[in-house]
């Protein structure tokens, strides 16, 4: 696949990239509301829509980091408000386990965040993203792909042995039992 095209990560001074997983009913709608209300906020997020925060597989989070995200944001309905009753509680449990796992992997805690944002809280989309971008800007790049290359070089392995992928997959396997 031709991926050698310019993208927003290149050329310009480094700017953090956040992958956000938003549930369809509350947080994605809130982000739409922020749009309709023409609120201006930091452009660093790329949103993936899922039906419910309960759909967010820990592997999605790990995979986003592995592919170069500097931060991952999960957005769901407030407790008690999930369109499917309790998907957000499941998301919360996975979030807590994932946080510990990411800490063990050396990923700063500000890089992974879960927020309850209801359909009416366009302003919260703005404030959460602005705040997270500011924090990531301060932390600097996570650059897991780059680090992975370094680790591979250190271990003297050939590129085929995908170290972080292995860790990520194993880890995901573990936490996905929640």
């Amino acid at each position, binding site marked *: *696949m*031709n*991926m050698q*095209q*310019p*993208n*927003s*990560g290149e050329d*310009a001074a480094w700017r953090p990239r956040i*992958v956000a997983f938003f549930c369809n*009913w*509350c947080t*994605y*709608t809130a*982000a*739409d509301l*922020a*749009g*309709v209300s*023409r*609120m*201006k*906020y*930091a*452009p660093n997020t*790329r*949103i*993936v*829509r*899922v*039906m*419910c925060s*309960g*759909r*967010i*597989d*820990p*592997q*999605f989070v790990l*995979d*986003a980091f592995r*592919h*170069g*995200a500097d931060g991952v944001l999960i957005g769901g309905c407030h407790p008690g*408000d999930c*369109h*499917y*009753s*309790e*998907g957000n509680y*499941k998301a919360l449990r*996975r979030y807590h386990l994932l946080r510990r796992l990411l800490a063990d992997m050396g990923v700063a805690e500000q890089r992974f965040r879960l927020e309850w944002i*209801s*359909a*009416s809280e366009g302003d919260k989309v*703005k404030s959460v993203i602005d705040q997270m971008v500011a924090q990531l800007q301060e932390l600097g790049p996570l650059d897991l*792909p780059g680090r992975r290359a370094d680790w591979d070089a250190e271990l003297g392995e050939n590129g085929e042995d995908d170290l972080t992928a292995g860790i990520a997959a194993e880890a995901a396997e573990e936490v*996905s*039992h*929640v």
Partner: protein
Amino acid sequence: MKQNGDVRIGFYICHCGTNIAGVIDVDRVRDYAASLPGVAVARDYKYMCSDPGQDLLRQDIAEHGLNRIVVASCSPLLHEKTFRGAAEDGGLNPYFVQMVNIREHGSWVHEDGEYMTGKAMDMSRAAILRVQVHEALERKRVPINPAVLVVGGGIAGIHAALTMADAGKHVYLVEREATIGGHMAQFDKTFPTLDCAACILTPKMTAVKAHPNITLWTYSEIDKTEGFIGNYTVTVKRKPRYVREDLCVGCMECIEACVYKSAKIPDAFNMGLSKRKPVYIPFPQAVPPVPVLDPENCLHLKNGTCKDFCVEACGDRDAIDFTQEAEYIDIDVGTIVLATGFDTFDPARIPYYGYGKYPNVYTSLELERLVNASGPTGGDVRLPDGRIPERVAIVHCVGSRDEHYQRWCSRVCCMYSLKLAHLVKEKTGGEVYNFYIDMRAPGKSMEEFYNRVSTEGVHLVRGRVADIAPESLEPPSNGRIGRVVVQAEDTLIGRIRKIPVDMVILSVGMQPQEDAENIRRMFNISCSTGGFFLERHPKLAPVSTFTDGVFLAGTCQGPKDIPDTVAQAGAAASEALALIDRGYYELEPNTAYVLEEQCSGCKSCIQQCPYTAISFDAEKSKASINEALCKGCGTCVASCPSASIRQHLFEDEEIFREIHGLLAYA
């Protein structure tokens, strides 16, 4: 999942006038998309959602043999249906379409065009990668139960119920008070025409009662709701009124006979301005015309020590039943109309207006009762000391348009303040001062109404009232109620004005019902920032909600007057009717399914499902999903340790590709 060697993607980027193209360089995004593998056609167009825009898709599908479509434009929540429809018209399975939200999540919120252009490329790349592995899916149909539930019997609920019942549908109308009618039943006249509220409302109320297709349950509440569009099961709690509706003939002799010789209990319908007995009817035209026994004050119900004159008076009709208990009834309905209305702002929250402190400071709703011919004073505007006020101040926007209380304009207060000014002037012949911030008179006949009242000698003072205080610190010696001084800055002359008056009317704003949050949860819908129920789209779907089959009517959705309430109630009714008459609803095919050969039978998915759609097939030792029960949240998919549960439309591979596309490293 299959790798499609023969994928032919059409990529379309919309200018949306200048909404998108004003920020994002659409030409560069288009050219970039064209360079990506699988993309057969890449175009930009001014308005993709327009007919010619949609035609582009159809033509290209035919001419270029496209089998996948990506549209970079607005939110999929707005136009996914449109583009799926266009693809389907062109002969493609509609689920081969993916949208890229570069407007709501792009050009409308980010100003840096250079960065946004790059980000739009990232987002488009993600969609292009994703759509390659999309699969053809079939929509599932669920039948719609033709019965409808309407919650709330104000003018909105009444109008919606009658419209649907007239169309031959069975309607359950549930009202929590002892009568239907809502706020409108409390008014004497209505703006802008000043026609009598009762004259237009009571015939509709009786029509509800008489309609063969309406089951009216007053003094009832919703206890529980289960199910989904087409098939809701709702539990209604019928509170005991201790008078049997099936036996009562509405003669009211029980009220006459009650041992309470005089009425002692503040009457809520009259805003506490009069008293009622423990057995009472809210107002003479109440529907149903059946009294209620208030268990907190009825001597029999309280301590069993009454002589039960009411029972005697009822005689062999035998309608009074002290043993009645709350009854829970389950009903099956296909659609629901919420019409729970509004509440008024409590002016005691603004201490300097002196409500509750000075006896001559009233709310507008109290005044509605005072000017009402069937109200506590028979329509006379009198102070508590019995005098007719000579000078009256009406304070607009109480609680509304105020950072500290409610930011919104309540929309009806200017007009009803003018109505009250007219009525008070007519009834008292006194001087009336209306203090307003801006005179808001939009809508048919409203400006004309304002012109009419302003030529009737009402003093219109442009200024927000800053204080209401007694004229004199000494109470008047003659037992009268002392005047208060209303202070405001008259912004038209740039002076502070202090006007002494006998009576103040606070034009309180509209706010959501106290239990709106509860109702919202029960029906799984959302609220807007102020707490009113949230419509699916402010312009294009104003009576729908994000929960299919649940519609909104009237002021539960936001402040509005009676004409708009009735219009919206009619709209909600016709949306429900459209669904019912079609007979079925098509569900998004985003259900979960089990890959049996991989499933290890660990059962960890089973307790994840909020709909008990997953069961354990003991014979095969595998999980099994009942598609009819699955709502497509995907929680089980994320929890399966062996990745053997998948979700249509949100397959792992589709999401991974989206992530990779978003982040592809240069």
